[in-house]
């Protein structure tokens, strides 16, 4: 009886001593989401520079997101106070059916028209990096590309 009691106590002690596994911290995977955090930086001779803010789990991904965000804002929203105050593409839904446009935005096709991309500010937080990226696009060249691929109409009736 005594032995049984001791055995039970030992078992309880052993069970309570099992190493408490710390819960594995799940790394957040950031998906690209367009935001309106794009503001005019400067403009000259058809070159438009905007500051775009995005967050991702690493700096390279955040920079890439910021570049895409800058482009999408120029294409679909326009940048107030700039030479592209109105969006280049007025009907986003219809335009997104064109392969040339999806390739331009998501397959890094935009890099041909991006004349500069520089990191202005970086903020590191737990498992995330937020960047402010100044991205410059050659607007006339971008427009011409979209015209040639039938995404937007050439100027005229």
């Amino acid at each position, binding site marked *: 009886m005594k032995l049984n009691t001791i055995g039970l106590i030992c078992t309880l002690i052993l069970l309570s001593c099992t190493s408490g596994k710390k819960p594995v911290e799940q790394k957040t995977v950031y998906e690209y989401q367009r935001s309106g955090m794009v503001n005019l930086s400067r*403009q*000259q*001779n*058809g070159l438009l520079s905007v500051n775009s803010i995005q967050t991702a789990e690493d700096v390279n991904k955040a920079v890439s997101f910021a570049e895409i965000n800058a482009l999408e804002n120029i294409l679909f929203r326009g940048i107030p*106070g*700039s*030479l*592209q*105050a*109105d969006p*280049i593409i*007025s009907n986003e839904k219809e335009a997104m059916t*064109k392969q040339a446009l999806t390739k331009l935005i998501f397959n890094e096709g935009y890099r041909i028209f991006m004349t500069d991309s520089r990191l202005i500010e970086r903020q590191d937080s737990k498992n995330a990096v937020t960047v402010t990226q100044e991205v410059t696009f050659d*607007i*006339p060249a971008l427009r011409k590309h979209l015209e040639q691929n*039938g995404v937007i*109409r*050439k*100027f*005229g*009736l």
Partner: protein
Amino acid sequence: MKIVKTVLIILLLSAGRLAAQGTTPANTQPTIMVIPFSQEGTSLRTAYEQNELVRVAITKVKEAFDKRGVNTIDLRAKIKQTANTGALQEDQKSDLKDEVINNSGADVYVEVEANANYTNTGNSVTLILTAYDAFSGESYANKVGNSPKFYTTNFEKLVEKVADTEIPNLLNTIQEKFNDVIDNGRTITVKVGIHENSKFKMETEVDKEGNFLSDVIEDYIVEKSYKGKYHIQGMTANQLTFDIVKVPLKDESGNNFRVSRFASDFRRFLRSKEIQCTQTINGNSLVFTIN
């Protein structure tokens, strides 16, 4: 078998080409003239020649159109041409602006105004750009821009600065309007009046079904207007006015839609109802008088 294969390949290739053509909307280059804003009592030539700011602004606007692949009509050449034909004399005033525009054959004209502003905190320039449809006089785009203030009297440079920002936006807005015209058609106005000696009134029954003349006319406009878009401004016993009748940009053959054709068709339609009328066409305005 080989021949069948070749034919199939050719057919497939041509189908692909046709599909690709379908994705690129064909469009016509409009003719555009850029003119200075001229106050009453000032001729276009004076407004152009006596204001250097306006000349810089006009050149910048023309340059922007050139970059978009649209040629502009040169104002000075047109003024000279108009003057040569006796339509415009140097001492004639700004009301002859319309004549220059009409004679130019421009589809769109852009009016440019540039003013220098002097202040204690620096000088700036205000640029006002307005684009009109020469056909209807409808305003296509309006932009007002101010340059940043600088302690300078080099106003030409300030005009360039503000023009660089505002002109691309002007062109974008014009293109938006063009897109609307492509999608929804051009606007014409149709006025149908009744001659004082005529036996008809708008409430006269004109067919076996007992339809009024006004109903018959409206039904015709419904059928012939582009996408059925029209608007009646007003109707009296002697007049029916449509201030908006949308017509397509191109006809079935792909040629430019002719307003004169619309007028003739309407006149013939009335004749089929044993109604005689006369027609007058002035730009986008059609006036019919039922006798």
